């Protein structure tokens, strides 16, 4: 009797402990739009900046964050090696993509007997997916594969990625079939951390309804094409953007009666990028001089930032932070509001507005001082250094990057040119009845920002934080002396670079 009572007591205590430690979370789907790229962490050493990198959208905080999605090895062969695939540092955690990912995993598990892929999807909002991955690594449960992930996401876990080249060599996987430039895209500080997978060129998304209302011709679809008889350059572009900016009284931003305090429609917005991305509108550049380990702000960045700032506070064709976060402009996802005529962003933005209900198309970026620059992102899947099954993970990785279904899923143009028609056909289907001129996207691939706006910098996490704060300052603050602000940024960057480990 006494023993039974003891056992009963222990059971009650165990259940109380389990109840106390267990967590439940309500899962409500709340797909939201991206605002800013996550900050990254320190980098060990400086190397030549990669040609291009990726920044995937992260979402604004929402009251209810969907619970992580995990799979339990559906379709796996008995005795197969477990390979965990973590999704959350970039695209891939939106509710509409999750079922496709689960289906892909099940299909893959059934197709072979060596690997058993387990999914772990953490909704990418704020920094929670980054925190989740950190917790997994710190707890000794590092996933095998992480992705899709771009340059900025990888930089947040500097040094945590395995060298894929040695894995490819061990598996006799032929890397020569890839364009060397693409291999550079997927290398961090000279180490190949993935296989080329998908590219995300940038271009101008435009709302045809707003152009039609203003009775203005659509922007050019080919580099070098004239717009309304004028060269498609910065002056023409700004003039067009101002004509498409309208206040509550119907005056556009070129009118003397225009009221900047009651704008109902903006002509242009550089959506979901940081200060380096804004700088890349004028040309590629890197704010770092490796020879002196000091900050150097490229002239093109300085010019682009001043143009951007004046666009908000003097010429009023771009929204300030109050407009950006207002209900009327969809709280950060501005183009989707239907009140922004042109937005400069990447292919991945097809994730985030109603492709079929919005009347839209894409146009080439204007030339600045005779040069066309379209900043470029490129995603991959990476294997973690702490992974316990790297060889099997590499086999899964090769299947992922060569499956034409995955780029369609994530909105990236396939790295392999032969797979692109299928990608565009799938996008056309989603955008119908719109007929999108995808030749623009392919054309913009030829004008990447070099050096890339996400290229490595010493102490990248601190540097990214400074660039993020600088953009927010431009968005929020009137009457800024931009020369002084840029000088301060340079000085802060210098301090951050010096803080980096030698």
């Amino acid at each position: 009797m006494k023993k039974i009572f003891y056992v009963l007591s222990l059971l009650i205590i165990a259940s109380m402990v389990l109840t106390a430690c267990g967590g439940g979370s309500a899962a409500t789907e709340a797909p939201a739009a991206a605002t800013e790229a996550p900050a990254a962490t320190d980098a060990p050493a400086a190397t030549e900046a990669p040609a291009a990198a990726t920044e995937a959208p992260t979402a604004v905080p929402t009251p209810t964050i969907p619970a992580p999605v995990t799979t339990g090895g559906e379709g796996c062969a008995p005795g197969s090696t477990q390979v965990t695939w973590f999704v959350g540092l970039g695209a891939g955690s939106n509710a509409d993509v999750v079922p496709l990912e689960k289906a892909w995993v099940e299909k893959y598990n059934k197709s072979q007997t060596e690997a058993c892929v387990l999914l772990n999807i953490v909704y990418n909002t704020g920094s929670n997916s980054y925190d989740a991955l950190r917790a997994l690594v710190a707890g000794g449960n590092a996933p095998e594969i992480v992705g899709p992930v771009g340059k900025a996401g990888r930089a947040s876990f500097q040094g945590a990625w395995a060298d894929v080249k040695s894995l490819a060599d061990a598996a006799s996987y032929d890397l020569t079939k890839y364009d060397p430039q693409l291999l550079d895209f997927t290398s961090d500080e000279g180490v190949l951390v993935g296989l080329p997978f998908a590219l995300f060129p940038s271009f101008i998304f435009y709302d045809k309804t707003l152009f039609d209302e203003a009775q203005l011709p659509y922007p050019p679809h080919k580099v070098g094409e004239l717009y309304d008889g004028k060269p498609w350059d910065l002056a023409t572009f700004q003039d067009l953007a101002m004509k498409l900016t309208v206040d509550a009284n119907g005056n556009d931003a070129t009118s003397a009666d225009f009221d900047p305090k009651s704008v109902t429609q903006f002509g242009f917005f550089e959506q979901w990028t940081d200060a380096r991305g804004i700088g890349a509108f004028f040309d590629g550049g890197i704010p770092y001089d490796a020879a002196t380990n000091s900050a150097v702000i490229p002239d093109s960045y300085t010019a682009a930032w001043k143009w951007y700032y004046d666009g908000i506070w003097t010429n009023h064709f771009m929204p300030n932070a109050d407009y950006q976060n207002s209900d009327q402009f969809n709280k950060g996802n501005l183009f989707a509001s239907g009140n922004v005529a042109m937005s400069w962003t990447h292919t991945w933005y097809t994730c985030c507005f109603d492709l079929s209900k919005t009347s839209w198309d894409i146009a080439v970026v204007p030339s600045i001082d005779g040069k066309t620059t379209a900043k470029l992102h490129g995603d991959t899947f990476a294997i973690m250094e702490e992974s316990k099954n790297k060889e099997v993970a590499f086999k899964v990785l090769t299947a992922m990057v060569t499956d034409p279904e995955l780029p369609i899923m994530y909105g990236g143009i396939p790295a392999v040119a032969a797979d692109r028609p299928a990608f565009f056909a799938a996008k056309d289907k989603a955008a119908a009845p719109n007929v999108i001129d995808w030749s623009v996207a392919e054309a913009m691939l030829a004008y990447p920002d070099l050096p890339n706006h996400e290229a490595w910098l010493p102490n990248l996490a601190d540097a990214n934080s400074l660039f993020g704060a600088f953009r927010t300052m431009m968005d929020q603050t009137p009457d800024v002396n931009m020369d002084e602000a840029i000088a301060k940024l340079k000085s802060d960057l210098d301090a951050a670079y010096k803080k980096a480990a030698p």
Partner: protein
Amino acid sequence: MSAVTRTNLASVPSRPRVTARTRRQWTYGFLFLSPWIIGFFAFQLLPILFTVFLSFTDYSASSEFKLGNFNFVGLDNYRQFAIDPLALPSMGVTLKFALIGIPLGLIVPLLLAVLVNSRRLLASSLFRTLFYLPSVIPVVAGTIIFGGVMNAQSGWLNLSLQALGITDPPRWFTDPTWAGFALNLLAIWSVGNAMIILLASLQGVPTELYEAATVDGAGPITQFFYITVPMISPVIFYNITIGIILAFQFFVPALLIGGTNGDPQASLLFFPMVFYREAFVFSRMGYASVLAIVIFVVTMLATGLLFYFGQRLVYYASGETS
């Protein structure tokens, strides 16, 4: 001599015998307490000790938490704190918030409690419910709602101010002059808990005190300051103590509104935010641990000072005053 000793020994009370029953009761007592004890050691004491340990290392959250990934750096992290250009200003942001927020967080719920305690108020139950209701809304949801309500361009607040003739209302969350105060206003939204506690306390004040005061000719204001406030002073003291602790931990709304940079222009860079950035943005767990320890020490000191100086002003009906 020996007789005295014997007498003294006899006067010493004998140690109570621990019977088998008492031992069994102790065993069961500890067994049933063990969930809390295990939880306390595993989830509170151990992490605190690890925080102290990490503060002497350069551990980065990007690597596995295991031996070999820690390098002892002595007092480097503490030296870093002394020269951190963000540490002192962010403590200033926190203190400024506390200086406005703690009095507001006491006065507003006290006034509401007095209001809903009034016999002259119609449908007082309804008002109690309405005032308490925001407390059950999650802080993240509440903050996002307020982000919209206080948006300078489309928020109801500024639209209302404009309707009242204020042509250039504050840019609440984008102007560094207003952002901190806007969060103070936001915090008032959820004073329901404090109001309920104060209301319960108000209802515990003996009515005969008011009756006697009325007979003596004391008006409502005199009664409030000379009867009500002293009688509920223990609860006021409790609310101030909790207010101080929460003010030093204030963080989530600031993160949601101002991001990890504490925008606009670091005006919302509260001290816990600097800790959060170091730990979870920059992965510098060693230095972040120092900041966590600083928050702990400062909060302890502030609470200790409050107890030392403040409790003398508290009136306990039972007679114990500090």
